[in-house]
């Protein structure tokens, strides 16, 4: 019974840590300079 409880607690903690690691943070930093410019039709050559 004790072993089972420890296993379940370990699994639970592992899932929580994995979830936090998977979901937190972001994938980089936004561009510091520059931006989007719409291209007029005559520039699409």
């Amino acid at each position, binding site marked *: 019974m004790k072993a089972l409880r420890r296993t379940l607690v370990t699994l639970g903690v592992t899932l929580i840590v994995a979830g936090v690691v998977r979901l937190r943070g972001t*994938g980089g*930093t*936004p*561009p*510091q300079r520059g*931006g*989007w410019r719409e*291209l007029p039709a005559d520039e*699409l050559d």
Partner: protein
Amino acid sequence: MKAAVVGLGAVGRRTVNCLADDPTFDSVIVVHRDPRRMGPIVEGWGDRVEVRRGSVSDLPAADVTVVALASGQRRAASVAMANGSHVVCATDDPTEVRGLLGLDGKARTEGVTVAVGTVMAPGLSCVLAAHLRGRFEMVEEIHVASFGTGGPACARRHHSALTSMAVDWEDGDWRRRPGGSGRELVWFPDPVGGADCYRAALVDPLLLVPAFPGCRRVTSRLEATRRDRLTSWLPMLRAPHPEGLLGAVRVEVRGWVAGRAETQILGAALAPAVAAGAVTARAAVWAATGRLSRSGSAGLAELVPAPGPFLRDLARDEISISSFEGQSGAFGDGTAAAGEF
């Protein structure tokens, strides 16, 4: 000229809207299992659009057939090819795309073109990559990212793509990685802005690699929220929306110009089904009028010989293309576009 359309989801309906407005076709035949159930969809299509009862196995003869089905595209394409029709397939499903690319030999033999993947990504992404090719002496890397979903079938594909294996092209070989990995913050044109994107079971590399021989890396990523990633291994918890209204695609090409490493980025922000409908309709017009480069089965990066005019045609459908301009952080030499972010 005559066009046939089968599949009336969000993309199919948008495609018919565009074809109905295009003077290239004298008639557009829409094939549906039960025309009585189409209801108000048909309003506003005009006299040139004819709705006909039918199924995939008895498609009408036409100069070009648009297949916008969620599944069974290869079978529909085979039937259309047997009618001597060019085929335009609006799909982003890897299994469908592999099946359609397998029709290349048969299509070449029969002298018809099968345009594969004519949605936002792949489709618009392929044309943008082909357009950027002209700015480089040698293309080294192509990175595609997309945001948003079209109709319900597209939303289901988005959901399943995050749990399937992603296939990227690296150093002359295919590399499989788990979907949902490889988070990267991607900056899309306004109003979308920044969004975290991940690897997923996407098809852009399958279509871009044959079009860019010698290219070292081709990757594709998909925007996903934290909820998407957390629930991707579950069935969809609620029914998908009828049509996504916000979407974007971004194509980054890296290569060499006059001995300098350079990065160029093009993108567009619009509803994915609108983009898919316009790209599919334009591909159908180009196929019917013999403006695609060859017979056989391939993506638009291979088939569109003049991406600039294709994009100008799309601009007439109110699809505007944007260029990211700034200074490159990746190469530190003041090149024209922003690099790593």
